[in-house]
């Protein structure tokens, strides 16, 4: 086994996903098969190979720090599930 159900539960907590028992069970089997498959990468010697994050060589994209119009508070809040005045409202954070 590449991954256990307990580990799947741990990863779900890291990913902020509340999985049901059944989902955890299914994902354990499926992730195990996928991780066994990706194991084939270990057959390649990659010593000294530079990792690729982007296919096109990129440098920092600098620009002038200029004030430009933005979408505004009302537009930014238009899709909020819950709002109060100019803010997003969420459940109590600090007990």
């Amino acid at each position, binding site marked *: 086994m590449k*991954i256990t159900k307990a*580990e*799947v539960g741990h*990863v*779900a*907590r*890291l*990913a*902020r*996903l*509340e*999985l049901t028992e059944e*989902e955890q069970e*299914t*994902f354990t089997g*499926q*992730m195990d*098969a*996928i*991780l066994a*498959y*990706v194991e*084939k*990468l*270990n057959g*390649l010697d*990659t010593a000294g*190979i*530079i*990792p*690729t*994050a*982007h*296919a*096109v060589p*990129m440098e920092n*994209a600098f*620009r002038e720090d200029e004030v430009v119009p933005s*979408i505004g508070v009302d*537009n*930014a809040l*238009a*899709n*909020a*599930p*819950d709002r109060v005045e100019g803010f*997003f409202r*969420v*459940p*109590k*954070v600090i007990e």
Partner: protein
Amino acid sequence: MNDLSLIGEDEMELYELTICELHDKLKKREVSSVEATRSLLARIEAVEPRVGAYITVTAEEALKSAAEADKLIAEGKSDILTGIPVALKDIFLTKGIRTTCASRILANFIPPYDATAWLKLKERGAVLVGKLNQDEFAMGSSCETSAFGKTRNPWNLECIPGGSSGGSAAAIAARQATATLGTDTGGSIRQPASHCGCVGLKPTYGRVSRYGVIAYASSLDQVGPMTRDVADCAVMLGAVAGFDPKDSTSVNLPVPDYTQALVRDLKGVKIGLPKEYFIPGLDPDVKHALDQAIETYRGLGAEFREITLPHTDYAVATYYLVATAEASSNLARYDGVRFGHRAKEAKGLVEMFSRSRDEGFGPEVKRRIMLGTYALSSGYYDAYYLKAQKVRTLIMHDFIRAFEEVDLILTPVAPTPAFRLGEKTNDPLQMYLSDIFTIPVNLAGTCGISVPAGFSREGLPIGLQLVGRPFGEEAILRAAYAFEQATEWHKRKAAL
């Protein structure tokens, strides 16, 4: 022109016209954009119950924009896209028009701004007829992970249209849009284009702005056109390509007039056939179509040589680590705070995050977030994510070396024609392996196009893939055009 051909043209419904054909009629004032748009909307109404290509049809807005386009045309301000009815994969933000990414988590999301690619079409007078179905968050190869129902392949309603841009391809095949845009992270434009018998181009990474395109895997995602033929593809690519200050990964290179690349002559063009792609497991009908295509290309003056892309066999494994890692990070934004679904009556913040995400995401999206989170987690980062990034370098070098020998690479798009609905939904790994010939192009960051190249004995379309050097879109369009003009495959219509 004799009388017979005139009759033939008159019988052609407006929804059947390509961009170039419709533009010609609009410019000559033979038809109006309102008439063309009405024709398409009626077509959508007629076939949509069977095809299911759309998530949202924007009939009212479309007729309004079509009327505006007609005004522009009357004033002589007509551009090739003015008044052309187009549709977008539901991954492109459209100001004021619901954009779901085929997910429950965005079921009621109304974007406050437009994606740059769409804005560029809109500013040239294109008419939006609707938003197209796809796999949820573009994660899938069959359009079956959508939270808004299945899309069926217009050539055989029991088959998948391909994915993730399945709606974008099916709408072209079913004549429900003149042209569409899709996105391609591991084959999501080219594979459905192949399965539905249309043209689909994935541009070089950085060629088209992703601003306002809902992110899946940011080092791989690209926007591209899906069209009836290669000329339309060149028009659409030219319209959406170019640097965008709002996407720092877009590349500041001039955009050529891609339609100038459309010539029939391929004399002296060297095409590579990677031996790793012509494997015994290849479907015999796909192999037959490719063999025929190679003969056609020889007749056009192209020269072939066998090449090797030695790390091909590692591409799917690399992709499913890189893409899922990036997805797990990108999809962290869906937390129920600022937009999207929020679970009711959560007791605390973390419970609200976790339950909102559990209720909002479908199984494939959860699976990929889980895999990506695992690959990035403490203790596994080096073994999985970093290792995959190193193998990605080897895969890129395969292509760099190949392009020292040849101008283009010709391959199958998918190992089989479209499979049956439900055939692979219970086996994610088998589903992932169906992208084996398209994924390496995304990892290498270069461009590829799928062009109709034949049909299976069952009557399902088969595409061929041409891969070019980075920013070599003109070369693949030219070779695609020459092939298309020498064959009749793109002229066949799905019986619906």
